[in-house]
């Protein structure tokens, strides 16, 4: 195998590959990226056995072939090469070496045979549809903060992507929760997605997927089966196993009867929460919200470190209420709001609170209060 490729193109492919490979692994081949050159393209394939990413890059292929090298090392080398350089990769299978030449720099890396590389079994996808990059970006960006890291409730370690009944008919919906907060984001149901099985997309896949979604114009080909999900652009294909578990019935969690309505400028609110939380103790970052007519007082009282208080002008017309929240959760939820005011719907100081953006019901957040 021998091919030449522009450094920037190579870096993009190799960077994606090295972020998929598991840093600490006991199986050497899993640290490697499989490089396959044929025709006028080179495929870069990396896997951690749960996720597989294949990146297709244009190159001048002199001699076809395939080999595998350490993904992290290759990435480091390419990263340090000068911008615009033309890089030539040559596989010497007899010596078990891949040489990398760019200008006056040359490197030789040990290779492992391509036959050892685990290629993810292909699978039958029951649903295939196209979704726009911005729609998917919103679905995952606004839910991922609520993904749980708890190992015992592994079925919460991802975003539950499924078809649901929204206000105006069927929608494609993403839900994530860690038991303390929940995010529910709806987007228009793409054509062909109606019969899709609900799947839990793992946290790491969500992170890798994000790199495919930067281009506003891009259409992403999505394929879903009971066990796998695939996202593809013309250049990159990301295939991932989904979490084998049942996502809990989140609809029970979303309060329907909360009547006390608070409307507040989200950015102002977030800044104020951040300020008063400065004095709270590391362990329990509780912020108290005291609501009276058109006035919100945020306060923190941490016996061992200090106290803080801040008042905000808000729209509130219901009975006075005092309720506490974890400052971090409030901040994360408030920072999801980017267009309109944040609307909070409260019941009592012990019940889950709902938050949405204006009257937009396609993005709904729930947060559990804290005793203060």
């Amino acid at each position: 195998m021998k091919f030449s490729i522009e450094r920037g193109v190579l870096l993009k492919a190799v960077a994606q590959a090295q972020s998929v490979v598991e840093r600490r692994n006991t199986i050497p081949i899993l640290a490697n990226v499989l490089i396959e050159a044929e025709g006028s393209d080179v495929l870069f394939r990396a896997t951690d056995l749960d996720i597989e990413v294949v990146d297709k890059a244009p190159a001048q292929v002199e001699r076809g072939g395939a080999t595998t090298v350490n993904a992290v090392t290759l990435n480091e080398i390419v990263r340090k090469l000068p911008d615009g350089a033309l890089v030539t990769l040559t596989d010497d299978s007899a010596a078990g070496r891949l040489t990398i030449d760019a200008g006056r720099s040359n490197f030789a890396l040990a290779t492992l045979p391509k036959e050892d590389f685990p290629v993810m079994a292909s699978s039958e996808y029951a649903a295939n549809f196209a979704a726009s990059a911005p729609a998917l970006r919103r679905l995952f960006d606004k839910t991922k903060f609520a993904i749980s890291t708890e190992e015992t409730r592994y079925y919460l370690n991802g975003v539950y992507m499924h078809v649901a009944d929204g206000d105006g008919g069927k929608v494609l919906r993403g839900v994530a929760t860690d038991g303390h907060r929940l995010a529910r984001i709806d987007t228009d149901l793409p054509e062909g997605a109606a019969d899709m099985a609900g799947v839990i997309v793992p946290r790491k896949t969500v992170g890798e997927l994000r790199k495919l979604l930067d281009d506003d114009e891009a259409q992403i080909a999505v394929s879903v089966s009971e066990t796998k999900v695939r996202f593809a652009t013309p250049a990159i294909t990301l295939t991932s196993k989904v979490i084998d578990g049942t996502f809990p019935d989140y609809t029970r969690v979303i309060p329907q009867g909360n009547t006390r309505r608070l409307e507040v400028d989200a950015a102002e609110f977030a800044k104020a929460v951040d300020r008063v939380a400065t004095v709270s103790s590391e362990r329990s970052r509780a912020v108290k919200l005291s609501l009276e007519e058109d006035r919100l007082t945020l306060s923190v009282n941490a016996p061992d470190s200090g106290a803080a208080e801040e008042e905000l002008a808000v729209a509130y017309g219901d009975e006075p209420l005092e309720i506490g929240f974890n400052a971090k959760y409030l901040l994360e939820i408030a920072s999801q709001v980017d267009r309109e005011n944040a609307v909070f719907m409260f019941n009592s100081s012990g019940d889950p609170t709902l938050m949405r953006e204006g009257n937009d019901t396609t993005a709904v957040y729930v947060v559990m209060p804290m005793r203060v």
Partner: protein
Amino acid sequence: MPALCRDCLTSFDGPGRCPACGRPRVTRHEELHSLTIAHMDCDAFFASVEKRDNPDLADKPVIVGGGRRGVVSTCCYLARIKGVRSAMPMFQALKLCPDAEVVKPRFDAYVAASKAIRAMMDELTPVVEPLSLDEAFMDLTGTEKLHGAPPAVMLARLTKRMKDELGLTGSIGLSHNKFLAKVASDLDKPRGFSVIGKAETRSFLADKPVRLIWGIGPVAQQSLAKAGIHTFDDLTRWDRRDLHARFGSTGERLWHLARGEDARRVSSHTPVKGLSNETTFGEDTSDPDILDGHIWRMAEKVSSRAKAKDKAGRVVTLKLKRADHSLISKRLSLRHPTQIADTIYRTARDLFDQVNEPGPYRLLGVGISQLAHADSADLEGDLLDPGAEARARAERATDKIRARFGDDAIVKGRALR
């Protein structure tokens, strides 16, 4: 050079016997009256209590121990002369010292004696850090004005009182930090009083073996020996970064200790690191229902201790011992500390469900650690488990009922399994 007679407590300056009582038990040191950190270690504590309570034993070699494990717990100095040591198997001890009197330990008596000594130490300083029943650190900094006598005198008075009033003897180590005080108390046992001053710290340690350091056991000694470290002198030749690179945080500690530096304070309230309860079954079992009952009972015990101490744990641990004595231990971090039995039980139960090793088991334990104050516990409910808050409320009500009518007034059905 300042000197102190440990028999009549006369302070004087100069060589020879005590000018007041003429006896030879004199401690003499340049820094005698300026050092304030002390370690008191009772001499053959359990055996001494036994000899005191049974004068027939006074002149005989006494070994306290036996019981089920059949090892020496403590032995008197007469037995030590024959080579008997703590933790030695009983049969071996009796081979070395066939005429020894073997006495079963009476912990109540030792606890009573220990409390009496503790009360005497509390009169010297508020900063007493007990290490076990028979030894403690004391920080006497700033007490000279209060007592009208320097720490050395007060410490000599303490051991004299222990002997006169309790019939027990102890040895004192006096120095400028905990590490050296503990080393010193062991230099001149029994009835010793040793001083390690700042001036001679380095020269004193130089040729001493590193096993003097508390926590450097046989295994650590081996790994140090591999690095060519046998004595404190060997240690001081090492660069600080090299020690750190090779031994991690232990290396950092060694670097300081090699120079006789120890910044740990004497602390009268050693923080509780964790709470746990365990039970050994009358009969080994792998019946999940029975084990579940035990998990609940242990969780409830841990929870009630946590509530009594105003503590809450962030980590829940489950411990199982299999019939072949192999140990299984699993732990899980919670997002927030808890003291609720229900939460501890559910977490331990989750851990139990992850255990792959088959039973039967002979022991089960549940514990919490990474303790925090109860103030920060159980503040947040769980969206996905709306019943949790109701169960926590039921538990708080149960606690109130028990506080009023006794522990048996109300019991969960599963505790009866």
